C-alpha cells in the first residue's frame, strides 16, 4: 500500500471533527390533568428548552422571547399538525416587538386600529398594505431607524435610534395586526393557558361535541453554531375535550359502531363486550358520566363495568343503565372514582346478555 493510500484509508476510519449544531430539546410539563381540557379551566404549564450551545430556558441563558409557545384549538388533522418552523421566528419577533413598540414613542402618532380614515396609518392599515408579509420587515425596519416620507402620503416619520434587530421585531409586531391580529402574543415559559370553546362547540345529543384537540406547542430556534444554521426543537401537548364521543373507543370486542338518528354510538345487542379508552390521565377526575342511547326494546341497558388496564382488570366502578321509554332516548349514569393519579387504560366491560349503546363518556362533567 502506498503511503498516500494508507493515509486516505486512515482518514476514512477516523470520525470527522465537524462543528455540528446540536438540536435543541423542548419539553412541556403540565400541572393537573394531562389528557383533558375543560372549557375556561386554566391549564398550568412549564416549558423547558435546552440547547447544548445556548443553555437552557430556566437558567436565564435563553431570551424568554426566543421560546415560542402557542395554544390553539385544531378542529381536524391534529395528529399531523405541527406549527410551521418559520412561525417560531414570527412569534418571537411579534411578541418581543410588542414590548418594544409599547416602550417607544410610536403611540404618539400611531394607533392600533381605526374605524375611519386616518392621516397616519394604524398598525392594522400597515399590516393590510403589506398583507402581513414578514419579508418586508427588514425594509420597513430601515425606515423606522432612518425615518421615511412618501410611503404613506406626505406624512413624515422621524428617525428612531433603535438597533436593526429591535426595529425588525417592532415591524413584525405591527405586521401581525393583519385581520383580527395580533394573533400571536407572547406566552411566558411558565404560566397558564385557558381553553375557550364557546365559539366552536356544538351541542349534540350526548353533550358538547368537540372532536378536535387543543394543542399546546412550544418551539425554540437556536442561534446556530460555528457556521451551522439554526436548528429548531419543538414539543406538543395535546388535550381532548372532557366529553369523549364513544366513537373514539378502540379495541372493540363485541361492540359495534352504529349510526343512529344522525349520531354515532358504540353498541352491543347482547354481551359480553368490551371497549377501551387508552392512556387516560385520571388525575383530578373523580366522576365519570356515561351517556347512553336506548329504549325498552332496543339497547334497554344493563351494567357496564369500568375496569383499569385490562378487560378483567381492577374494577373502578359500575354504570347501571336502564332504558324504559318506548322511543330511543338518551340516558346517563355515573360512577365516582377513588382518587387515581396518572395514566390508565379504561375498559368498559359489558356482561353476558346485557344490551347497551354508548354515546359519550364524560370526565368531570356537570351534564
Amino acid at each position: 500500500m502506498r503511503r498516500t493510500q494508507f493515509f486516505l484509508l486512515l482518514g476514512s476510519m477516523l470520525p470527522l471533527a465537524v462543528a455540528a449544531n446540536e438540536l435543541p430539546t423542548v419539553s412541556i410539563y403540565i400541572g393537573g390533568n394531562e389528557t383533558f381540557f375543560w372549557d375556561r379551566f386554566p391549564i398550568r404549564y412549564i416549558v423547558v428548552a435546552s440547547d447544548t450551545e445556548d443553555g437552557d430556558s430556566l437558567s436565564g441563558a435563553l431570551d424568554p422571547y426566543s421560546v415560542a409557545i402557542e395554544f390553539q384549538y385544531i378542529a381536524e388533522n391534529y395528529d399531523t399538525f405541527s406549527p410551521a418552523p418559520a412561525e417560531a421566528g414570527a412569534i418571537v419577533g411579534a411578541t418581543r416587538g410588542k414590548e418594544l413598540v409599547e416602550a417607544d414613542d410610536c403611540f404618539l402618532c400611531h394607533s392600533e386600529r381605526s374605524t375611519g380614515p386616518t392621516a397616519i396609518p394604524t398598525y392594522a392599515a400597515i399590516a393590510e398594505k403589506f398583507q402581513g408579509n414578514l419579508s418586508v420587515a427588514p425594509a420597513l425596519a430601515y425606515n423606522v431607524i432612518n425615518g421615511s416620507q412618501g410611503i404613506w402620503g406626505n406624512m413624515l416619520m422621524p428617525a428612531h435610534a433603535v438597533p436593526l434587530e429591535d426595529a425588525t421585531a417592532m415591524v413584525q409586531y405591527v405586521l401581525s395586526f393583519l385581520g383580527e391580529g395580533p394573533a400571536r402574543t407572547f406566552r411566558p415559559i411558565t404560566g397558564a393557558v385557558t381553553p375557550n370553546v364557546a365559539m366552536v362547540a356544538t351541542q349534540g345529543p350526548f353533550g358538547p361535541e368537540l372532536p378536535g384537540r387543543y394543542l399546546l406547542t412550544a418551539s425554540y430556534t437556536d442561534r446556530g453554531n460555528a457556521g451551522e444554521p439554526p436548528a429548531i426543537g419543538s414539543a406538543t401537548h395535546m388535550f381532548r375535550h372532557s366529553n369523549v364521543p364513544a366513537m373514539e373507543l378502540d379495541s372493540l370486542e363485541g361492540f359495534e359502531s352504529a349510526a343512529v338518528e344522525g349520531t354515532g354510538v358504540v353498541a352491543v345487542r347482547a354481551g359480553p363486550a368490551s371497549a377501551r379508552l387508552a392512556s387516560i390521565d385520571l388525575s383530578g377526575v373523580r366522576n365519570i358520566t356515561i351517556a347512553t342511547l336506548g329504549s325498552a326494546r332496543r339497547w334497554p341497558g344493563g351494567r357496564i363495568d369500568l375496569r383499569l388496564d385490562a378487560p378483567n382488570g381492577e374494577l373502578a366502578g359500575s354504570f347501571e343503565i336502564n332504558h324504559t321509554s318506548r322511543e330511543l332516548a338518551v340516558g346517563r349514569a355515573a360512577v365516582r372514582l377513588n382518587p387515581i393519579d396518572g395514566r390508565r387504560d379504561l375498559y368498559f366491560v359489558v356482561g353476558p346478555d346485557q344490551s347497551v349503546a354508548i354515546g359519550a363518556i364524560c370526565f368531570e362533567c356537570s351534564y
Partner: protein
Amino acid sequence: MRASTLIAAICALLAPGIAQAQMLMDGHRGVCSDCHVGAATDRYVLDTENSMVVYALDVFGFSKTIGTFREIGGGFVFDPEDAENASVIASIDAASVDMSDPALNRLVRSERFLDAQAHPLITFQSTAVERIDATHLRIDGQVSLRGIAKPVSLAVEINKLGPHPLTGRRTAGIIATGRLQRSEFGLTLGLPSIGDEIEFTLYAQGTLLE
C-alpha cells in the same frame, strides 16, 4: 413505593453480599438489620409518618424555592453512651418530591432532573459519626442521587430521646441539616440562575425496635 419496599431495596443496594439479609419488620415499617453494622445495640426505625426532608435552593437570587420529600424510610443504630459507633441508613422515594406545583413536580421527577423512573431512590448511608456535644453529632456519609454517590456531611441535633407519650415506645427525634451541590449529581438544568447548592433538612423520628 412504601417504606418497607424502600428499605428492602436499599438493603439490596447496600448489602449485596448479604444474601439472606434479615428484615426486622415492624408493621409496615422495616429496617435492614444486616446491611449496616453499628456497635451500639439500640436500633431505631424511621417513623415514616413523622419524617420528611425539606430542601431549598436559590431562584434567580430573589428567593428560594422549597420542596419536600415525604416518602422516606430507613433506620439508625444509636446508643447515647457510644455515639461514635452510631450508624444511619435512609432512602427517599424520588417520586415523592413535592414543590407545591403539579407542573413543577412533573418537571423535577422527569429525566431532566431527578429521573425518578430510572433512579427511584435517593439514599444515604453513614460512614463516620463524631460527637460534638451531648445533643449534637456530625455524621459523614454517602448520598446517592441519580446513581451518583458523593460524600455529604450532616449536622445532627438530637431533639429528644425517651418514651413517646402516645405510643409508650422509646423514640428518638432528630433534625439533620446538610448541603450538596446538585451539579455533582448531573442536575445542571437551570444553572446558574437556579442555585447549585441545595440546603436540606431531615426532620426524623425513630422508634426503638424491641
